[in-house]
């Protein structure tokens, strides 16, 4: 039944509807369906519909499809969702933008610890915002805490899968961190990775 309804929509709305369908279908999982539907993750859909840190509200999901897709939801409860290969850019929260702005000011005036405090506040609000990790890694670099700087940057990389621009930025930062710490070989390796993106 679900399948017939889908065909109908696809024929009617073409490609745009198709994309919409994917997001709705992400809650549907039957053996007969191909994996594409699983590639669009629920999180991506949610992140677009709502500000970043807001989780999908269980009772009031905005997508109407979810409400009438009672059966598929139960079905999905029986299979492990496929992780997406790429993440989509986080829509930044205005609170986080404000805090990052403050942190950059503090960094400029040399008040690195205050900048760290502001960024950790931002991290608690949006722990999946790569900009926060980028700035935090830069602060640790300036504090000459190179090991931690690199780890924070790696954490950032773990949440920007499939975003070439971000990956380039983070790997370039890691190259700089390694260069500052005197690890020339490591720096050039990181730069090579950065150049791939």
């Amino acid at each position, binding site marked *: 039944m679900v399948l017939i309804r889908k065909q109908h929509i696809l024929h009617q709305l073409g490609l745009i509807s198709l994309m919409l369908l994917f997001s709705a279908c992400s809650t549907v999982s039957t053996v007969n369906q191909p*994996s594409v539907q699983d590639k669009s993750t629920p999180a991506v859909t949610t992140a677009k519909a709502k500000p970043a840190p807001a989780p*999908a*509200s269980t009772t009031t999901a905005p997508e109407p499809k979810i409400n009438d897709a009672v059966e598929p939801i139960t079905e999905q409860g029986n299979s492990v969702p496929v992780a997406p290969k790429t993440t989509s850019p986080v829509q930044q929260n205005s*609170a986080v933008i404000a805090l990052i702005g403050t942190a950059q000011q503090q960094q400029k005036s040399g008040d690195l610890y205050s900048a760290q*405090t502001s960024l950790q506040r931002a991290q608690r609000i949006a722990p999946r915002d790569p900009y926060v990790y980028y700035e935090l890694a830069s602060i640790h670099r300036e504090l000459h805490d190179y090991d931690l700087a690199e780890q924070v940057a790696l954490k950032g990389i773990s949440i920007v899968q499939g975003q070439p621009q971000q990956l380039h930025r983070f790997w370039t930062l890691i190259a700089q961190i390694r260069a500052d710490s005197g690890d020339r070989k490591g720096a050039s390796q990181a730069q090579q990775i950065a150049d791939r993106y």
Partner: protein
Amino acid sequence: MVAKKKAQRPKRSARLSPKTKKPTFKQKVMSFLSKLVFAGLVIFSLSLLFMDTHIRKQFEGKRWAVPTKVYARPLELYAGLPLSQEDLKTELRGLGYKFVQQAREPGQAEFSSTKANIRTRGFPFPDGNEPAQQLNIGFSNQTIASITTNSGQSLPLVRLEPILIGGIYPLNNEDRDLIQLSDAPQGLTDALIAIEDRDFYQHAGISLKGISRAMWVNLKAGHFIQGGSTLTQQLIKNFYLTSERSLARKVMEIPMAMLLELHYSKDEILEAYLNEVYLGQEGSRAIHGFGLASQYYFAQPIEELQLHQVALLAGLVKGPSYYDPRRHPERAKKRRDLVLKVLYEQGTIDKKHYDHAVAMPIGVVKHASLLKGAYPAYLDLVKRQLRQEYREEDLSSEGLRVFTALNPIAQHKAETALVSTISKLNTIYGKRVTDLQGSMVVAEPQTGEIISIIGGRNTRYQGFNRALDAVRPIGSLIKPAVYLTALSHNYTLVSELDDSPYKITMQNGQSWQPDNFDHQSHGLVPLHTALSHSYNLSTARLGMSLGLDRVIDTMRKLGVTRPIDPYPSLLLGAQGMSLVEVATLYQTIAANGFQMPLRAIRMVTDSAGNELSRYPFQLKQTIDADSIHLLQYALQETARLGTARSIYQSLPADINVAGKTGTSNDQRDSWFAGFSGNRLAVTWLGRDDNAPLPFTGSGGALKVWINYMSSEQLESFNSAAPDGIEYHWVNSINGLLSNNSCPNAIQVPFIIGTQPTESDGCAGNTNSDPVSRSLDWIKQWF
């Protein structure tokens, strides 16, 4: 008299003369008395000098040992924050806000169906001052939709004051919140002076007028109403002298009071008095000063107190125990009304204010709503960490401020989940679960902050902290470490494991023969199924083939630091651990292989807000992202299809969670550890006497976990597949490559190059690339 003494000298020098008359008895007495008086004067002057030094030294030095204050995390408010009105109310209740029809004063809040209007108090945070302001908060779908000021200006981010969750007290258990004279409402000082020392601003330390007036009032009333001591005398008595009632002490009081008045202004003396005075007792903790008393009796800062409240506090000075407003509300009200009457009679307040104040109920809060003492288990962890870095003496006297990550809303939900689940289990199992205990740790998986700890079913009990100190066998919670070791050593999720009966004989001759929970052998099973269904036989075989050393190495990488016994039974969780240790282990799994020390403290400052130590976000990738991704898949399978599948009877299917059940030998411990995108929780149920339970991990601890997680606004656990991972369709029975249209086909992640090469023979599965196959599927519709 001294002159007289001198005049006698010639007589004394003539002593040798035989004609000299012997001094008369009278002269002898006089001489003795003179000497005595002289000596007395010398002693008196010396002691005055000594007293004076003593008074000045103590008054100008550090007057009081001020306890360390420990705060919860401040609630950050911003548009987009998932927060229900009920959650906000929980927070505001903790802060002692009054819920009113119209919020006019700081510390008041009004709620309508979709809005909240709150008047914040502001707070001097170490990284900046948060001003007191009026906030209009709009809610939509249990989320903050907007925050504006009264003038309609939109605010990106606002912090509420942090809830004070406890302190570290000096040995004498005196607790106080220091205030300045300017913090005290005028009504308080007026009332205090009116009832205790009407001539305070006129006298020089002692007041004869005051004493006579007190006598007159007492005579008139026929019983004791007023004492004659001035506020200065009372301060001297409490501040410098012991509490014994002796004449000597009374005699000392007078000159000391006068000396104090000589050196210091009336306002300085009054300020010291406001902070020194004893105003109540809570167990061994003594409540001193009006600053703390205001919190203790009204859960409000002193600046917010109304006339009837300050009158009650001023009335308490005479006898905090006798007039205890909680134990003797009638007595306290009578005393308060007397204070108000005196104020009225003196003309300090008018009839209207008097009538209004007298008509008010005493309005003290119950103990429960004051959050000191509400978080003993969390505070315990904080204190342990502090004691590693600070001297006890400094902790109990320097007025340090400690900012922690405790989330009172999450703590409230966790407590409700634990207590209600235990009570349900009581209904189901009756006597078999008498004395059932439980504990819980909740952390934020992305930042590694511990946001809630429960140390026992009686969540306010300060004793045994099970979350930290109960070291219990973790049962199958250890299995992820075994499987992670395998996945890092060329095993895949579909590798076949042998689940046939197993027995080994150890070097000491003892044999170890594990068994599955259902006492069945499952033959050959795929690795992911063995983990999600928690099979013991295959796990034991797998672990032994990998080697205990490697498994222990993985445990270390996951963050376990305690000594580990390298026995085969380790593989099935014979090793004891505390909840916090288990949380650390699962935190590493939730954070994609980044090990983070779990943190409770964010920052410590001195009393003026200067930073002393900070505990920044730290992490280190100890497990490669690919292996962790595979493990996360199997732990999600546990929640979807395995031993924890009851989760999805309560949680919505679009929220991914991962976790593991655990049951120790003979069902003595019931465990669950699991996480969503924004919450990691470890739950434990068991008995202190180690008696067996009538349920397993999924029958007990998992229920607590589900109960808690359902009460939170969860974010789905969504971790992108790392570069080194590819998903392939495989046959769930034999683990061979399959096709999306084939029976029993499931999608499973593999480290690139480790996927099966052999096909299960199902038609048309030559194309193993899911993307191109999917595109083919799309094309057929056009």
